[in-house]
């Protein structure tokens, strides 16, 4: 069966293009990511489009199988509910497997007794949003030890901002305000989310991390990430922590701090990399 390559600013875009071009739906395509897109440095150097290879699935065969068992379709549907938009449906597909702690955030409500911070955090966020003014509802729940605040409504990307900037700012301030008086050590972590952004982000990071580690293993040379904020670096470190053949380290200062993935048995100079 023939396969085609597509490029786009993001993987999603590339897949969308593929669907359009081949006049089909994403569900009917096997997608293989060849290259992640990178923003490059200051948007000038090293900008690269995402590349995907898609292959049409043998629909007829699958339909016949599905008729037989129904099961294969059912699992498929669970993974990417059809009513979701293309973007969202795509996330679980590419990196199905296990999830990191941050990834499982949304659906587990009310685990253990909610600490007083829960209501407080909810109020603070609502008050801030009300003054922005954004009309949205905040749903508070517990996710492990952290308070998870989900902003419902509005729908626009306004609250997420460029690369999640606004969402991070909201989260940072709510954390600051809530933990203002608490002594360090007993601080409550508060996660602010909307439209499942955090989970999507984690999934994207996971994909990228795994790809980078593959590359490091293949080339036996250190592979460098683009600079990212602390929280995202942490996720990448955690994801790659169980990989035996690579290890990760961060270098650089402030906003330029980046992760470098080293192959364990690589002969490339580790020292020089600083």
């Amino acid at each position: 069966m023939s396969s085609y390559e597509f490029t786009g600013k993001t993987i999603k875009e590339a897949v969308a293009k593929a669907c359009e071009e081949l006049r089909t739906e994403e569900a009917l395509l096997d997608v293989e990511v060849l290259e992640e897109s990178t923003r490059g440095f200051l948007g000038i150097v090293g900008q690269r489009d995402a590349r995907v290879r898609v292959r049409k699935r043998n629909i007829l065969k699958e339909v016949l199988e599905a008729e037989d068992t129904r099961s294969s379709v059912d699992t498929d549907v669970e993974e990417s509910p059809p009513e979701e938009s293309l973007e969202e449906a795509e996330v679980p597909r590419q990196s199905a497997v296990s999830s990191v702690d941050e990834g499982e955030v949304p659906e587990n409500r009310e685990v253990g007794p909610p600490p007083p911070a829960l209501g407080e955090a909810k109020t603070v966020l609502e008050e801030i949003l009300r003054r922005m003014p954004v009309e949205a509802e905040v749903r508070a729940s517990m996710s492990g030890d952290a308070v998870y605040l989900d902003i419902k409504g509005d729908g626009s990307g306004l609250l997420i901002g460029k690369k999640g900037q606004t969402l991070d700012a909201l989260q940072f301030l709510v954390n600051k305000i809530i933990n203002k008086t608490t002594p360090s050590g007993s601080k409550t972590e508060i996660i602010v989310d909307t439209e499942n952004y955090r989970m999507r982000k984690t999934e994207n990071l996971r994909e990228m991390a795994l790809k980078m580690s593959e590359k490091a293993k293949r080339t036996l040379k250190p592979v460098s990430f683009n600079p990212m904020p602390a929280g995202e670096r942490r996720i990448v470190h955690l994801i790659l922590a169980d990989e035996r053949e690579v290890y990760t380290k961060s270098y650089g200062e402030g906003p330029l701090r980046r992760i470098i993935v080293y192959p364990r048995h690589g002969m490339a100079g580790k020292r020089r990399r600083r």
Partner: protein
Amino acid sequence: MKELIEYIAKALVDNPDEVSVSEVEGEITSVIELKVAKPDLGKVIGKQGRTARAMRTILSAASTKLKKRAVLEILE
């Protein structure tokens, strides 16, 4: 937008009574001036200016929504 900054600042500092915010409105851009008690200055600026940056980010999101521009100035 003034209320937004005022609320956040009051929530951050130890002396909320000494927070004062004024808005100087221009045609396109309005400047929001934030004044806090001296010991609280660090609280609204934050480590490496992180808190101030977060407030500015939220402010710019808010002003996008209102189709305006706003700048936050922290006065000493």
